[in-house]
């Protein structure tokens, strides 16, 4: 195990503050200047079950959690059972001694201590924070400050409880782990927060959503921030309403975005196609969870790739891109919002639960987010679907004395319905010109991430799996070339030419290797092996590095 990495895992029932304890722990690590990656594993229920939060931290950039943990805190028996193999060498188990007995750990009477206060079990999370603080030698004063900031309900009780637990834990394992300080404190955000902030930086005006994990937290975050940024944020009656409302809003000149997961996006495809023919600039955030159908709501997968690439009936330009890191999610969301307006076509930011709901320390240069004006009408007669060299017609918004008609039927340049043979093919050609224009534009942009290595094999991956791969390579001291296309439609084949006949390995989270198929079909890539995982869990860097070693 990399000696500079420290991993903290806390597990218990939903409603005991597991996730909150995880995020407070992450803040403690970031406060001492370290980098953090936090992954929350939770079930689709409100109370009970088993949830855990795992946070890995290092003085250098870290792009995945590790399942082998140095400190594991279990609130209940089920957590002890579940995580008995997740202990790193020299790792420490702390358990709730009121819930069970265990030979190989340190028991702390969490229940009986918490019962002294009205909030009872709700305080377990605070207890976990106190145990962590004691084991890493975090000063009590600093801990109290953090508890004040992070647990505003019942501050006094929380502090008394935390101090008691801290003292108990300190006797047995005080200062067991000494964490090297990092260089500076960085903000910690989730992927969905990065997406939301990127959209705001990119000029978002309206957001429509219908609750669906793992995209719901975009709706929640933006609803919370609506007033600050002058946004309209609407929870509509269905995903069908969501996309059609968004299209209506773009007609008025508003930058609109919608967010959902696979099932909700299935409902949106009718409207997605409408955006194709009306040339409505719509951005869809599609955060994947395991399918088909309801699938596994609170876990991760990359099996909606093929669906996203072909979503919506008929021929039209779809832009699909997937952020590889939380930080990139900020830039790419702004860039995609910019692109759908530049090219007046629908786009999808494809991501996964693993990026949406994991948290990371980030360094973002806010000003680097893209935001530009679309092609606008200047003078003369106005034709919404004016044929131009690049296929992009100038836009005009109401109120306007010139009539602006967007049409879901095939139409003439003015926007009036047509069934005329010549006009039908003419309008197809007009829209298809945008494909060439887009590819020419993207050739000047950063569309693929390539890290050059020394090993003769290359690794191809995309989306949040990129983070798992980088961490696995670092852990295993492996050095192949890593290639991660950010754009998936159009796939930047011009960047992939050189790898075509080399030794290529693909790593993805789809049981039918959808990404591998895309690379073979579109880029003509020879693929030697595909490493895939489709159990709803993100790759663990240690396990993944072993698998990579086997095929390199």
């Amino acid at each position, binding site marked *: 195990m990399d000696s500079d990495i420290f991993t903290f895992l806390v597990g218990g029932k939903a409603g005991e503050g597991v996730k909150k304890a995880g995020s407070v722990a992450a803040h403690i690590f970031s406060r001492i200047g370290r980098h953090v990656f936090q992954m929350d594993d939770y079930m689709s229920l409100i109370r009970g079950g088993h949830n855990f939060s795992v946070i890995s931290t290092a003085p250098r950039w870290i792009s995945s959690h590790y399942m082998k943990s140095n400190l594991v805190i279990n609130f209940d028996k089920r957590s002890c059972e579940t995580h008995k193999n997740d202990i790193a060498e020299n790792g420490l188990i702390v358990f709730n001694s009121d819930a069970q007995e265990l030979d190989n750990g340190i028991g702390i009477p969490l229940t009986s201590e918490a019962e002294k206060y009205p909030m009872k079990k709700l305080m377990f999370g605070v207890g976990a924070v106190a145990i962590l603080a004691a084991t890493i030698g975090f000063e009590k004063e600093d801990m109290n400050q953090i508890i004040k900031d992070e647990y505003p309900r019942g501050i006094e009780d929380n502090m008394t409880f935390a101090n008691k637990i801290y003292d108990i834990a300190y006797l047995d394992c005080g200062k067991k782990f000494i964490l090297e300080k990092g260089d500076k404190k960085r903000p910690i955000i989730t992927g969905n927060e990065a997406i939301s902030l990127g959209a705001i*930086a990119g000029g978002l005006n309206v957001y429509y959503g219908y609750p669906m994990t793992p995209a719901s937290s975009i709706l929640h975050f933006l609803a919370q921030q609506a007033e600050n940024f002058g946004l*309209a944020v609407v929870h509509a009656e269905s995903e*069908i309403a969501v996309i*059609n*409302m*968004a299209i209506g809003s773009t007609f008025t000149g508003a930058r609109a975005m919608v967010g959902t997961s696979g099932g909700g996006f299935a409902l949106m495809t009718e409207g997605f196609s409408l955006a194709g023919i009306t040339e409505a600039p719509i951005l869809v955030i599609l955060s994947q969870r395991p399918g088909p159908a309801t699938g596994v709501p609170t876990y991760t997968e990359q099996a909606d790739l093929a669906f996203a690439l072909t979503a919506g009936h008929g021929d039209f330009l779809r832009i699909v891109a997937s952020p590889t890191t939380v930080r990139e999610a900020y830039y790419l969301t702004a860039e995609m919002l910019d692109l759908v307006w530049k090219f007046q076509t629908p786009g999808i930011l494809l991501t996964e639960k693993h990026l949406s709901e994991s948290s990371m320390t980030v360094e973002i240069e806010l000003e680097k987010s893209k935001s530009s004006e679309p092609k606008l009408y200047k003078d003369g007669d106005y034709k919404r679907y004016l044929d131009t060299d690049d296929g992009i017609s100038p836009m005009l918004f109401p*109120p306007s004395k010139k009539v602006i008609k967007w049409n879901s039927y095939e*139409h003439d340049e003015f926007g009036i319905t047509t069934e005329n043979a010549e006009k039908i093919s003419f309008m197809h050609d007009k829209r298809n010109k945008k494909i060439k224009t887009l590819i020419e534009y993207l050739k000047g942009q950063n569309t693929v991430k390539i890290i050059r290595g020394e090993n003769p094999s290359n690794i191809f991956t995309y989306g949040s799996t990129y983070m798992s791969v980088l961490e696995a390579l670092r852990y295993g001291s492996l050095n192949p070339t890593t290639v991660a296309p950010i754009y998936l439609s159009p796939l930047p084949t011009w960047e992939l030419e050189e790898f075509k006949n080399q030794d290529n390995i693909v790593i993805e989270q789809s049981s039918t290797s959808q990404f591998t198929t895309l690379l073979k079909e579109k880029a003509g890539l020879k693929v030697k092996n595909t490493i895939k995982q489709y159990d709803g869990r993100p790759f663990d860097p240690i396990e993944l590095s072993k698998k990579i070693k086997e095929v390199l």
Partner: protein
Amino acid sequence: MESLKTDAEITWCPGCGNFGIFTAIRNAILILEQKGIKRENIIMTAGIGCHAKIFDYLNLSGIYSLHGREIATASGFKISNPDLKILVFSGDGSGLGEGLAHTLFAAKRNMDITMILHNNGVYALTTGQFSPLTQEGWKGPSTPKGSFEIPFNPISLMIEAGATFIARGFAGDIKHLTDIIVQGVEHEGFSFIEVLQPAVPYHNWAEYRKQVEYLEKEPKTYFEAIRAAKEKHKFTLGTFYRTTKPVYHKELYGDHNPVLKKLSREKRLEIIKGILKIK
């Protein structure tokens, strides 16, 4: 002043009730202009069906939407720019079949838009299948033995759902129809106007004219309105319900306007810095 008609070829059947609605809406727009509403502030949308062809003929800006989605499109217009006056053309199949949920929710939200429901009691454009408003016993291509579903009562349905202006007009009484469209557009809130509209391949005008009658007086309370909607037959014209309730966009963001009062990029980035606590 530009014509309210485009150059598009009109493809409704000769004698179609849609012509009456087309005339009434143009009259209504001229009256609204006289009352100070600018034409460029009136934006329209339509579903798909015979009713929706009006989109190509009426020289107003808007989106020719999908079958059943016109109310969602219209809500999108209003939410991002509440200064616009929104006209939604809908049909009994589009607005109460495929798009029923959107219609009910727009009423529930008191979305400030005007829905004109062209009720021809049939899926005319797709060759005469029964619609949500077709009387039992209709022998259409999808119900060869006669339909057996009881139709909706659109007026009581809309009262119950929360619409705040509810009226029924007739394509054969253009003056009355013009008048209720003007009132519907002027009303702040969700206005639902059902228009009885014969589709000539399936109905004849004489049948309609024989049955049409007018409400003696406008119901004053919610329960009077429900009672009128339930007791009067479905050829009864007039305003069934009118009330005042907060409109959706004002509840959402007060006097804001998301497209006209956009926050500058500098300001946005400054606030984001605050959220991330970065200097």
